[in-house]
C-alpha cells in the first residue's frame, strides 16, 4: 500500500497495464509530455517513470487534434489486435467524435454478429467547478448511457480509479471513463499490487438505515460530507456509489433503497435524462411499494455552465443541497392522498 492521488492511481493502472501487455498503447493529445500527469511517475512530470522513455514512441503516441479520427483509429486498431487507451483529456471534447462512439465503437460488434471485438478504453475528465466556462465543464456521461454497447465507469476514489481502470483495460468491450477533475487531488492508501475491481459492482461508501443516497462521481465526496452533517442530526445515511454506470449495479441500489425506503440521487450532470432520472425510474418501477417518500434528484439544473465564480458555484450538488434533499424526503408525509397533491 502507498498513498496515491486519484491521478496517480490512474497513472499506476496505465503503467501496470502497459507493462503486462504489449498490445496496450496510449494515444492522445500531449500524452508524450505527460501534460495531464497520467503518463509519467505520478503528477510530477519528471523524467523518472516517464512513459515515453519506458515504452517508446510506438506505444506512447501524441496525436493530432482530431478527435473523430483518433477515436475511429483506436476502434479500428482494437478490432485488429491492439488494446488502445485513448486519452481525450476533457469530456467536453468527446462530441467531436460522437459519430465514431455511437456508430462504430458501440455498434460494430453487434452489427457484425460478434465478429468484431472492441477492447479499447476512452478516458476523459470532467472539468467542472473550476471556472472554465461552458465549453470545458460538461459532464456528458448520460448521453453515452443511452448508447447500448458502451461500458461506462466513473470512479470517485483513488482505489476505485486504479482497480476500475485496470478492469476496463482488460475488458474486451469498449469502456468510457469519466473522471472528475475535482477528484484529482483526492489521496488515499492504494494497493501497490495489481488488482481489478469488476465492472458493474457498486461500492457501499457508508452504511445507514434511514435514507439511501446514490451519488455519482464528484458528488460522492459531497454526499459523504452531507451524511456526516446528517449523522449529527441523528439521521443514518447509506451511500451507494455505482462506480460503473453501464452496466449498472441495480441490485445494490434496489436493496439499499428497499431497506431504507427513501432515496436521494446526487450527480453533477444536467437533470433531464440524466443518470439520476434513470435510477429514479428503475426504482419506481421495481420497488415502488418499498418507497416511503418521493425520490429526489439533486443534479445540475438544465442550464449551461456560467464562467463567473459568483454564478458557477450554485450549479452542482453540494453537501448543503444534498443534505437538504435528505431532510425533505425524511419530512415528507408518507401517505397523503392523490387529491391533496394534484394541483
Amino acid at each position, binding site marked *: 500500500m502507498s498513498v496515491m492521488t486519484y491521478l496517480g492511481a490512474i497513472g499506476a493502472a496505465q503503467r501496470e497495464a502497459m507493462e503486462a501487455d504489449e498490445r496496450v498503447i496510449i494515444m492522445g493529445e500531449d500524452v508524450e509530455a505527460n501534460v495531464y500527469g497520467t503518463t509519467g511517475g505520478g503528477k510530477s512530470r519528471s523524467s523518472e517513470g516517464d512513459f515515453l522513455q519506458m515504452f517508446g514512441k510506438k506505444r506512447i503516441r501524441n496525436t493530432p487534434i482530431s478527435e473523430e479520427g483518433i477515436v475511429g483509429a483506436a476502434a479500428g486498431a482494437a478490432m485488429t489486435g491492439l488494446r488502445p487507451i485513448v486519452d481525450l483529456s476533457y469530456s467536453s471534447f468527446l462530441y467531436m467524435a460522437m459519430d465514431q462512439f455511437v456508430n462504430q465503437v458501440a455498434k460494430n460488434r453487434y452489427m457484425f454478429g460478434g465478429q*468484431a471485438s472492441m477492447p479499447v478504453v476512452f478516458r476523459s475528465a470532467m472539468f467542472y467547478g473550476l471556472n472554465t466556462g461552458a465549453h470545458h465543464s460538461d459532464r456528458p456521461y448520460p448521453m453515452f448511457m443511452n448508447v447500448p454497447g458502451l461500458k461506462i465507469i466513473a470512479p470517485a476514489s483513488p482505489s476505485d480509479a486504479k482497480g476500475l481502470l485496470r478492469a476496463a483495460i482488460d475488458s474486451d468491450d469498449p469502456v468510457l471513463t469519466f473522471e472528475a477533475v475535482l477528484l484529482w487531488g483526492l489521496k488515499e492508501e492504494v494497493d501497490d499490487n495489481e488488482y481489478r475491481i469488476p465492472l458493474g459492482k457498486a461500492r457501499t461508501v457508508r452504511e445507514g438505515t434511514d435514507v439511501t443516497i446514490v451519488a455519482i462521481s464528484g458528488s460522492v465526496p459531497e454526499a459523504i460530507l452531507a451524511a456526516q452533517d446528517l449523522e449529527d442530526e441523528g439521521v443514518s445515511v447509506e451511500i451507494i456509489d455505482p462506480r460503473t454506470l453501464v452496466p449498472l449495479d441495480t441490485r445494490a441500489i434496489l436493496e439499499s433503497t428497499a431497506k431504507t425506503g427513501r432515496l436521494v440521487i446526487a450527480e453533477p450532470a444536467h437533470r433531464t435524462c440524466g443518470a439520476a432520472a434513470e435510477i429514479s425510474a428503475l426504482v419506481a418501477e421495481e420497488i415502488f411499494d418499498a418507497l416511503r417518500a418521493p425520490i429526489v434528484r439533486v443534479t445540475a439544473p438544465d442550464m449551461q455552465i456560467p464562467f463567473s465564480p459568483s454564478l458557477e458555484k450554485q450549479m452542482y450538488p453540494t453537501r448543503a443541497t444534498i443534505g437538504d434533499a435528505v431532510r425533505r424526503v425524511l419530512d415528507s408525509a408518507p401517505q397523503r392522498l392523490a387529491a391533496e397533491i394534484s394541483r
Partner: protein
Amino acid sequence: MNATLPIETLLEMQRRMLRIRRFDERASKMVKRGQIPGTVHTSIGQEAQVVGSCMALGEQDYMSGNHRSHGHPIGKGAPLGPLMAELVGKATGVCKGKGGSLHLADFAVGSLGESGIVGSSIPIATGAALSAEVLGNGRVSLAFFGDGAANQGSLYESMNMAGVWKLPVIFLCENNQYALSTPAHTVTSGVIAERAAGFGMEGVRVEDGQSVLAVYDAVSTAVSRAREGGGPTLVEVITYRYNEHSEGLRLGTDYRDAAERSTWLDRDPIVLFRDHLVSRGVSADTLDALEAEVLAEVDLAVAFTNDSPYPEPSAAFEDLYTDVEVAA
C-alpha cells in the same frame, strides 16, 4: 506492371467482377420482389474499380467500406452464400442477420465492415493500419468511400494521421460522380485526388476507372508504397453507377441525363475486360464457362439463403457485449 500478371489472376479478376454484377443484379430483383427487406445499393458499373482495388491487396490485408457494400467483400474474396443470406436477414448470414446489406463484414477475408454512415468507416481502416504498423505484421489497409464522402472531415483527419505516422493505408475514393442526386462538381471544390498533396502524401486519379487493370496498377503502386513504409496514398477512381442510388428509389427530378448514362454503358468494365482477355488469348469458351460458373454460384447463394432459417428472436439480444447480458 499488369503485363506480368498470370492469366489465372486475370481470370480471377473477371470472375470477381462477374460475381459482383450477377450478385447485385439478383439482389436488385429480390428487393423489387420484396425478398430483401429495405433496400440495397448496387455496384453495377463500378466492378472494375472495386475488383482492381481488392485484387491489389493481399488476403491478410484489411478493408472497410460504405453503403455501396456488396462489391467490397465479394471483391476481397468472400463467399457469396453468407452475403446473400445476410441481405435477406437469415441466421446463416455473414453477420447472423444482424447487419444486413449496409453492414456486411467478413473478417475472414479482412473485411472489417461496410457502413451506412457516410465517411464513418474511414478512420476504422486507418486504425487497422495503425495496428499493422505497431504490431509490425506487414499488413495494409484500404478504405473505400464515395465522392460524396470525400467532403466529410473524417477523411482529412485520417489522411493527416496516416501521413504523419506513415501508416500503410490506401484511401480509395469511388468517384461515381454523384452522391445520391447531387453531382459531385456542385458540392466539391477542387479535385479530390489533388487534396492529397496538402496532406503530404501521394494522390493519384485513375481516369479510366472502367479498366480493372488501370485500377489494379494504381492501387498496387499504393500498396507497395504502404508495405515499404512509404505511407498512405489517396487514389481517386472515376467510374459510374448504372442503377439508381439505391434499388427501388424513384426520384421525380432527373439529375443524370440518358446520354451520359449510355456513354458509360458503352464502356462496360466487364465487356472491356472480356475483350482484353480474348486479346490475351483466352478462349470464348473459357470465358463463357466462367460466366456460367458465376451464375451458378449466385444461384447456389440464393438457394443457401432460401434454405436457411431466420434467426430466433432471442438472437437480437446476443453479440452486443462480450460479457454482459441485456434484458429484452
